[in-house]
C-alpha cells in the first residue's frame, strides 16, 4: 500500500513533528467510580498493543484517545496536541474503529457512509466523490459503492468502517477489538491491514495475544492501572502466566 504519510504540521522551530502519545498522571472517573488511575507513559512506537483482562481499563484507555471520555485528572497529548485544550484538532487526528461493524455505519449506502467522514471539511462535491472512489477502490469495496451497507458481510462491514476512518487521513488509529466479531479469514485481512499496510500510528486493544505479539510495544492494564510497558514478548509471557 502506498498511502503517503499523513501530513503532520511541523513545529514552528522546525523540529520534526512528534509522533508520541504522552500520558501524565492521567485518571478517569465515570459516574463516581475511578476506572483508570495514575497513567504516566510515553509511547513513540508505531504499533502499540493494549492488553489486559476485562474491566482492566484498556477500553477506557482507547476511548480516552478517541475523545469518547475525558480525562478527570492529568494530561494527554497526541502528537504534541493536548487532548482537552485542542479537542477539535485531536479528534480530527484520531480515527476510531470498534468491534461491532454495524454500530459504526451511519449512512445507508457504502459510498454515502464513507463520504460522511468528509463532511464539514470544506471539500467540494467533486473532491469528496474523487476521494470516496479512490478509497473504495483501494480497499476493494468499489463494486459495492451503491449497495446498502447492511447487505455487506461482517468482514466487508469492518473494512467499510476502516475505510471511513482512513479516508480522513488520520495520524493515529485507535482500534478497540476490531477483529473480535469476525471469522478467521476476515480477522486476518483486517489485522494485516492495520498492522502491516497502513502507515499511521496504531493503538490496538485486543484479547488476541498473537496480534499483540506482532506490535512494537505492549501495554498491559490491570485494575484500572498501567501494569507494565515493554516489548510484546515478555509482557505477553507474563500475562499468560498470570492467567494461569
Amino acid at each position, binding site marked *: 500500500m502506498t498511502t503517503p504519510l499523513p501530513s503532520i504540521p511541523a513545529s514552528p522551530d522546525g523540529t520534526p513533528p512528534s509522533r508520541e502519545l504522552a500520558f501524565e498522571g492521567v485518571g478517569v472517573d465515570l459516574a463516581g467510580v475511578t476506572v483508570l488511575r495514575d497513567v504516566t507513559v510515553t509511547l513513540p512506537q508505531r504499533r502499540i498493543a493494549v492488553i489486559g483482562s476485562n474491566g482492566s481499563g484498556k477500553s477506557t484507555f482507547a*476511548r480516552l484517545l*478517541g*475523545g*469518547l471520555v475525558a480525562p478527570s485528572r492529568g494530561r494527554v497529548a497526541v502528537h504534541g496536541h493536548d487532548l482537552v485544550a485542542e479537542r477539535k484538532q485531536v*479528534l*480530527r487526528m*484520531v*480515527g*476510531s474503529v*470498534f468491534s*461491532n461493524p*454495524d*454500530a*459504526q*455505519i*451511519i*449512512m*445507508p449506502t457504502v459510498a*454515502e*457512509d464513507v463520504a*460522511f*467522514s468528509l463532511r*464539514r471539511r470544506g471539500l467540494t462535491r467533486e473532491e469528496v466523490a474523487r476521494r470516496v472512489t479512490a478509497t473504495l477502490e483501494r480497499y476493494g469495496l468499489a463494486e459495492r459503492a451503491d449497495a*446498502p*451497507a*447492511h447487505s455487506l458481510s461482517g468482514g466487508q462491514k469492518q473494512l467499510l468502517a476502516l475505510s*471511513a*476512518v482512513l479516508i*480522513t487521513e488520520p495520524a493515529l488509529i485507535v482500534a478497540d477489538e476490531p477483529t473480535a466479531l469476525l471469522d478467521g479469514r476476515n480477522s486476518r485481512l483486517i489485522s494485516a491491514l492495520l498492522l502491516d499496510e497502513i502507515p499511521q500510528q496504531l493503538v490496538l486493544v485486543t484479547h488476541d495475544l498473537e496480534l499483540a505479539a506482532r506490535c512494537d510495544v505492549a501495554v498491559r492494564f490491570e485494575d484500572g492501572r498501567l501494569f507494565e510497558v515493554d516489548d510484546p514478548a515478555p509482557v505477553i509471557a507474563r500475562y499468560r502466566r498470570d492467567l494461569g
Partner: protein
Amino acid sequence: MIALYRPGTSPLHRLPAGPKLIALMLLAIAITVFASNAWYIAGASALVVAGYFAAGFGPLEILRQLWTLRWIVAVTLITQVIFLPLPVAATNTGRVVTVVMLATLVTLTTRTSALLDAVERGLGPLRRIGVDPARVGLVMAMTITVVPVIAGYAASIRDAQRARGAKPRLRILVMPLLVMSLKHADELGDALVARGAE
C-alpha cells in the same frame, strides 16, 4: 427497504418534488372541503385518472393502488352507512379515495431522495426556532441505515424465544428489543462522536 417510487420520464416525474408536494396539499384540502356533491367528485377523480395516464401508469396500476386502499374504503363506507344515508356515504367515500389516490400519484412519481431534499429545504424556515434541517436529514438517513439492524434484532429475539419453546408475545419480544436497540444507539453515538459529527 423498497421505496414506493416507480421510475419514469413523464412530465409528472420531472416536476420538482417541493412544488409537487405543496400542490398536492392544496389540492387535497380543496377537494376535501369543496367537493360535496357527486359531480365534483366525479370530475376530480377523472382528473386524477388522467394524471395516472399522463405519468405512464395504465389501468392495471390504478386498480393495484385501489386494492391497497380496500380497507380504507371498507371502514369509511361502513362507519358512514351507520350514520348517514347511502348516497351521502358513497359520495364521501369516493372523495376520500380520490384524495388518497392523488397523493399516491405524487409518491409514485417522485424519487425518495428528491423528497428527502425537498423536506430538508422545506424545514429551512424552522431554523429560526432552532431546527437544523441538516441534522434532521442526518437523523432520517441514520434511521434508514438502522431499520434493517433493528429488524434483525427482532428476528433473532423471536427465533431465540421460539427455540426455547416460548410463545412469542408482544411484551417479552419488545423488552429485549428495546435493550438491544438502545445499546446499539449508544454505540452509534460513540461512532458519531468518533467520526466528528459533534
